[in-house]
């Protein structure tokens, strides 16, 4: 198989709605807003779009089954080839990958990719809707909830590398501060390590300020072939690498301290983009950070540093916006909020804007040329990675 596809693919427009706990807009309305913004930024109209990809994570959150069909109109799919992709939290980066293959294959010249999530419809908390993702025979009788399994993973990661909670808390401090410069952000704040360590324990070692919030929101990008890109913009951002990988559902049989599947996905994307030394060649990255430890876990899985080294880099300031390797300059999920699929695509939008020099107060210095976005999902088992270049 030719991994590079037949055609080079560019992003030419991006849009994101506000991320908030309770938005008045329906999922369709949010999808519409994001799609419209992305089209406007691309200087295109819906009639220029040949195919549409929609990404949304669990149906159970807003209690609408077959959500792809439900959201189709808002996503601009009226009378068009349309598909939904769905790999849990990995969806937000997998949706543009699916859009990439629509265009790279030569089948379409243009593809609109829209991701939407509305978590706040589910009461008292969307957590409860998540209980049905576990194995019905062996795991559900234990009464599992999602925070538990991430706490299990965090604890294993801390144990394996002897990492202290205060070093992990620095991620939450950094990302919430970065989010103060982001107009869409739900939880931008100046907090301290002590605030994180003193916040309510949810499932040890996960505390309130280690976690991103429940959110609503949507994001969208317009993907086009090279020929179209030259017509519509002087400033295309190229999708130079894509990778994705899933691990076994037998999550209790894996060593949770390291995400192998993220490494495999990253290696696939790096090979395609010709990247041999990721920390040196990646100028800015948006790894998935629904929990503070996940940013560190994912930096390691993405080969941006050695195993167990991410907390040290964070402590030294390397991952600050003005550091050598800026990580989550957007504020990430911890700062912006976590409308799951939309949050992943927001990361792709952020890298797009960073590489175009349009990120305003969030702009990382040094004229970044290569950026990376990554998302993670399912039962701690799925990784999706995208490499963008100016």
């Amino acid at each position, binding site marked *: 198989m030719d991994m590079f596809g037949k055609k080079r693919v560019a992003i030419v427009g991006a849009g994101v709605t506000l991320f*908030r706990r309770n938005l008045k807009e329906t999922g369709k309305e949010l999808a519409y807003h994001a799609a419209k913004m992305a089209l406007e930024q691309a200087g295109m109209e819906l009639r220029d779009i040949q195919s549409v990809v929609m990404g949304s994570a669990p149906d159970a959150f807003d209690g609408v089954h077959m959500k792809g069909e439900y959201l189709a109109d808002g996503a601009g799919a009226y009378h068009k080839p349309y598909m939904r992709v769905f790999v849990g939290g990995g969806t937000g980066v997998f949706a543009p990958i699916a859009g990439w293959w629509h265009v790279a294959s030569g089948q379409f010249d243009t593809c609109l990719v829209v991701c939407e999530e509305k978590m706040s419809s589910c009461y008292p908390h969307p957590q409860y809707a998540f209980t049905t993702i576990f194995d019905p025979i062996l795991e559900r009788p234990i009464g599992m909830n999602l925070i538990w399994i991430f706490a299990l993973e965090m604890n294993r990661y801390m144990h394996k590398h002897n990492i202290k909670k205060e070093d992990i808390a620095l991620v939450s401090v950094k990302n919430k501060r970065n989010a103060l410069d982001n107009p869409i952000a739900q939880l931008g704040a100046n907090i301290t390590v002590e605030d994180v360590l003193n916040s309510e324990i949810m499932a040890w070692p996960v505390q309130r300020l280690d976690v991103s919030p429940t959110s609503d929101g949507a994001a969208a990008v317009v993907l086009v072939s090279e020929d179209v890109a030259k017509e519509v913009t002087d400033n295309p951002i190229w999708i130079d690498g894509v990778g994705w990988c899933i691990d076994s559902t037998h999550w209790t049989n894996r060593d949770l301290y390291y995400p192998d599947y993220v490494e495999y996905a990253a290696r696939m994307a790096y090979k395609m983009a010709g990247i041999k030394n990721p920390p040196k060649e990646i100028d800015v990255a948006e790894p998935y950070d629904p929990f503070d430890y996940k940013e560190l876990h994912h930096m390691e899985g993405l080969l941006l540093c050695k195993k167990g080294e991410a907390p040290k880099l964070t402590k030294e300031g390397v991952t600050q916006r003005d550091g050598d390797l800026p990580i989550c300059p957007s504020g990430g999920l911890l700062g912006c909020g976590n409308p799951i699929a939309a949050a992943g695509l927001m990361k792709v939008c952020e890298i797009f804007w960073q590489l175009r020099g349009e990120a305003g107060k969030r702009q990382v210095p040094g004229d970044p040329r290569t950026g990376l976005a990554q998302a993670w999902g399912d039962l701690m088992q799925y990784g999706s990675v995208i490499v963008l270049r100016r």
Partner: protein
Amino acid sequence: MSVKIKHFPGEEIETKDFREGKVLFESFRSKARYAWSAGIAVSRFLEELKNGRILASTCSKCGRIMVPPRIYCEKCFKPTDGWTYVKDTGIINTFSVSFIAADASRLKEPVVVAVIELDDASPGMGIVHWLGEYGDWREIKIGMRVQAVWKPPEERTGAITDIKYFKPLKE
């Protein structure tokens, strides 16, 4: 988020709207019922739990002893070719102390859940279960040895809960 974009859409519902009852709620309880098949491998596993034994399956190609058991080895992608029992003792691979219930509401007493690596299974092969009789949760450590506490035989139903929990072993 682009400097070229001046307005980001989205309107929030305010807390007072909830308080003043201006938000419509709908409760929906699905009447769907499910009779899940436990499958070939896990059905045997559950039958053996009734006997107080933990069943594993083995792959002669990669040599793994797997719990929970399966009829195929997902790595070698061939049928597993044996069954064996593993001990009901093991070590805590990782654990969590939950102060929230499945619906994210607060619990008065925390629940401790752990991945237990069972003795005689391949390294890292674990099952998820509760911990009990652990005293102060702050004393629980990864690597601690534990043993299954079983329900009395007459109360076992062939479910994962035939094991009440795992308790730390005094050494």
